[in-house]
């Protein structure tokens, strides 16, 4: 961090000012002039919180994508299909058993199993042929999309939120002050916050597992140079299978999350594939903290964009990607 400030004082200053302005906008009571200029504070706060929680969901999808890419150089364009499959499995389980938590477990296991099968049967056969692997994932995404359309039809499904998570919660953020001095606090859906906290926990756990455990060390070594790692006697194929299972499983969990606070339907696979592509391009390929940063940036850009400039929202997301590619083609937090 301090090295970054030393090297790029201007960028560090801009970043600090931007964060300070954002914090002020979130915490302070807005003066009337500001409300007149850009609308009510409640709308803004909702957009920010929606953006951050959406970022949590994007992080879950993109972290698996970036992990698989980082270790195996495999751009898994079927990642969106894994997300959608996880959503459908989660929906089926939650309808069948009525348990929301169980649907996460089963979706993780089922999608991880698909990942293992893919890695063993398909990708192991064409190791080192990046382009061919990518083509295969494109073919697989078409096949999966059609199979899921066949099995589940074109309907929208929404996973039932459990009773203990239904309803809004009052946050200690003042949206406005009434004429006689009473502050009005923000009401926000509890389930989104819980899911956001859970994705932060998963992210931190993944970071700890990668940086503090032996397996994590092996995975990091594999990201840097898998040939040397294999030469030191690590059973690299086993590591590949494990990482692919984890990455796919995370996509499955994300599917259940997405099915809970949005909905699942055909076409969502592409949407989340695009989201993970952009998040990973912005954050840096193969970097977990990069995926987290990229996810929050893209989530915020999407939500703020859709509130303030509705017909050009996607352009904001896209411009961020262009800006990053122009200034730092390897991504914000990539090491190379």
């Amino acid at each position, binding site marked *: 961090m301090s090295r970054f400030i030393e090297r790029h004082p201007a960028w560090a200053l801009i970043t600090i000012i931007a964060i300070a302005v954002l914090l002020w906008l979130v915490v302070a009571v807005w003066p009337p002039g500001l409300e007149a200029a850009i609308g009510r504070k409640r709308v803004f706060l909702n957009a920010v919180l929606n953006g951050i929680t959406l970022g949590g969901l994007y992080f879950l999808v993109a972290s698996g994508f970036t992990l698989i890419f980082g270790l195996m150089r495999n751009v898994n*364009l079927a990642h969106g299909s894994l997300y959608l499959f996880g959503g459908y499995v989660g929906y089926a389980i939650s309808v069948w058993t009525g348990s929301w938590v169980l649907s996460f477990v089963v979706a993780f296991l089922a999608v991880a199993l698909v990942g293992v099968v893919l890695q063993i049967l398909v990708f192991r056969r064409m190791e080192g042929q990046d382009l061919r692997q990518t083509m295969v994932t494109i073919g697989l995404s078409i096949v999966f999309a059609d199979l899921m359309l066949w099995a589940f039809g074109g309907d929208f499904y929404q996973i039932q939120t459990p009773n203990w998570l239904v309803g809004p919660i009052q946050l200690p953020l003042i949206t406005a002050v009434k004429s006689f001095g009473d502050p009005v606090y923000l009401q926000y859906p509890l389930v989104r916050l819980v899911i956001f906290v859970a994705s932060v926990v998963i992210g931190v756990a993944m970071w700890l597992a990668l940086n503090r455990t032996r397996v994590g060390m092996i995975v990091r070594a594999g990201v840097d140079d898998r040939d040397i790692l294999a030469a030191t006697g690590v059973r690299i194929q086993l590591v590949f299978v494990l990482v692919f299972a984890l990455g796919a499983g995370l996509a499955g969990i994300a599917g259940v999350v997405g099915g809970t606070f949005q909905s699942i339907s055909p076409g969502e696979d592409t949407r989340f594939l695009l989201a993970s592509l952009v998040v990973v391009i912005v954050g840096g390929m193969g970097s977990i903290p990069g995926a987290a940063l990229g996810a929050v940036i893209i989530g915020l850009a999407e939500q703020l964009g859709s509130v303030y400039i509705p017909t050009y929202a996607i352009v904001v997301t896209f411009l961020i990607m262009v800006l990053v590619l122009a200034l730092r083609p390897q991504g914000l937090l990539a090491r190379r």
Partner: protein
Amino acid sequence: MSLIQGAQLQATQPGSAVRRAIARAWPELNSPAAWLVALILVIMPLIANGFFLIEIFATTLILGVIALSLMFLAGYGGMVSLMQLTIAGFAGYMVAVIGVSGNANISMGWPWWLATPMALALATVFGTLGGALAVRTEGIYTIMITLAIGAAFYYFTNQNWAIFNGHTGINTVATPHFLGVNWRSDIPFYYLTLGVAAVCYFAVQYLSRAPFGLALQGVRDNPRRMAALGFNVNAHRVAAYAIASFIAGLGGVLQVWNYRQISPGSVSVGACIDILIIAVVGGITRPIGPFIGAFIFVMLRTFALDFLVKFGLDGNRFRLLIGLGFLAIVFWSSDGVVGLWESWRRRNAPAPTGTNGSRHG
């Protein structure tokens, strides 16, 4: 590839130097099969009725032109771009927005002879900018960035009403009438697409042997060495994107004239991927590949329903069939149908002797 061309060259009768030079530049001129295909394509309106002419052959040629632009980038430049259909769609949208259409509040109503070059120029600029962005990274990243561009454009057309008219798109796009001919009526339109496709095909064929194309292939094979030799690697790549964008734009203009409407569905991610499938199934090492791939694709798309129902299967599983076919091609042939055919021919024909000598001569 070069081996076969060498064999064809050797088969020519010793003639004047000019004839040999022409033959070297255009090996198709010496292949009877190519003349036969060309003849069939030219007399097609006598053989086929309107449905086949437009729905099968014109559509094949249009998709082939768009896929040809991808083949040019991927085969000679080593850059697999998934945004070629997006560029084509952009050109189509521009024809609709700048020219005349049923949505009078959006269309600017320019005459077609002004709107079409404008649309092509804008599409070329759009594709070149996208390419300039994509060449900042290499190899596998190109796919990701171009896919992101394509998907972003799709969502943008969906949510923007001011220019792209949201998810309803733009309808009843005007088609050109000149020289007393309605160019959208079946037979003139077929010849129009055939002409454009032939020009694009020969242009790509010519470019692949021109100094620029050779340098581009050098960049594909070893960018560092080409840079060391004094070639500007990125400039070559961006130039390749510009050419491919123009070709894709031509395909897009024809497509919007064909359907007379354009909507976000025409530039969806699935459609972008279809172009990749067409090029890969046909074979991305030769310009003829995309047209063969497009023909297979269009035939499957048109007849898979009847075909599947006949075998007692669900007729809606066309995309499953396409996906599985694509997977099979990727698994078993690195060079698509063209590659399969060539390896089959090589296995059946006795090995030609003396080809090595002719390659040096």
